[in-house]
């Protein structure tokens, strides 16, 4: 039966949250992160994890941190226009996002991305935050998800992941 996304309940991961039943066969890393790292990261203020329940079931989660993008490119035009053009940009980092086995393809990921952008829009007004950045699995379906849900563009690639960003200054206000 398809998930009723109107009944999704979002909350912050708590020490008492039982995450042991969360299964994500697509990625050991995502499952292991929630099982073994998310709570400690939250205590250490490395990342904050938001969990998504549908009834009693923990069906998804995402984790956010503050990130940074550094570039060694010297922009001559900007150098002429500004005394000290930036080569380092603050970013809201979507460090992990996952939906439990059996619940994918039902719009839960999109609902989580709405919350990510809601937070990014707040941050960019309050503390300065230029980008939303994701560390995406090297998988065409995953990359399509980010292109479709936020217009993310690829900026960096390594052996097992692709980093993608969207520039918050380019998002129209309405």
């Amino acid at each position, binding site marked *: 039966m398809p998930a009723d996304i109107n009944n999704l*309940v*979002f*909350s*912050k991961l708590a020490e008492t949250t039982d995450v042991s039943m969360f299964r994500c066969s697509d990625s*050991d*890393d995502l499952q*292991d*992160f929630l*099982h*073994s*790292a998310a709570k400690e*990261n939250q205590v250490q203020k*490395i*990342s904050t994890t*938001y969990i998504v329940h549908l009834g009693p079931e923990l069906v998804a989660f995402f*984790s956010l*941190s*503050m*990130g*940074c*993008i*550094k*570039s*060694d*490119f010297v*922009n001559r*035009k*900007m150098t002429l226009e500004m005394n000290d053009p930036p080569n380092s*940009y603050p970013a809201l*980092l979507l*460090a*992990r996002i996952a939906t439990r086995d059996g619940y994918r393809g039902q719009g839960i990921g*999109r609902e989580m*991305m*709405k*919350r*990510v*952008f*809601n937070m990014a*829009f707040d941050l960019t007004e309050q503390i300065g935050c230029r980008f939303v*950045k994701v*560390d995406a699995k090297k998988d065409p379906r995953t990359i399509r998800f980010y*292109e*479709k*849900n*936020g*217009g993310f*563009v690829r*900026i*960096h690639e390594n052996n097992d992941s692709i*980093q993608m*960003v*969207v*520039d918050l200054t*380019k*998002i*129209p206000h*309405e």
Partner: protein
Amino acid sequence: MSGIVRHCHSQRHERRRTMAKPIELETTLKGEEARAFNDYVSAPSQSFNKESLDLFREARQLRKDWHR
């Protein structure tokens, strides 16, 4: 649970603890990647698909207490 089984569970738990890769906060771009990033940053606008525009609009409309 016997001592051996408990020991195996404990080992598996310890192994799992180290499997999730650390969060990489920083991305450093060099060469062609840095140039392409600069082109993106410098571009005055970006064309977004309808799905993304709808997503941004709905994101702005969310209640501030979406996480309880």
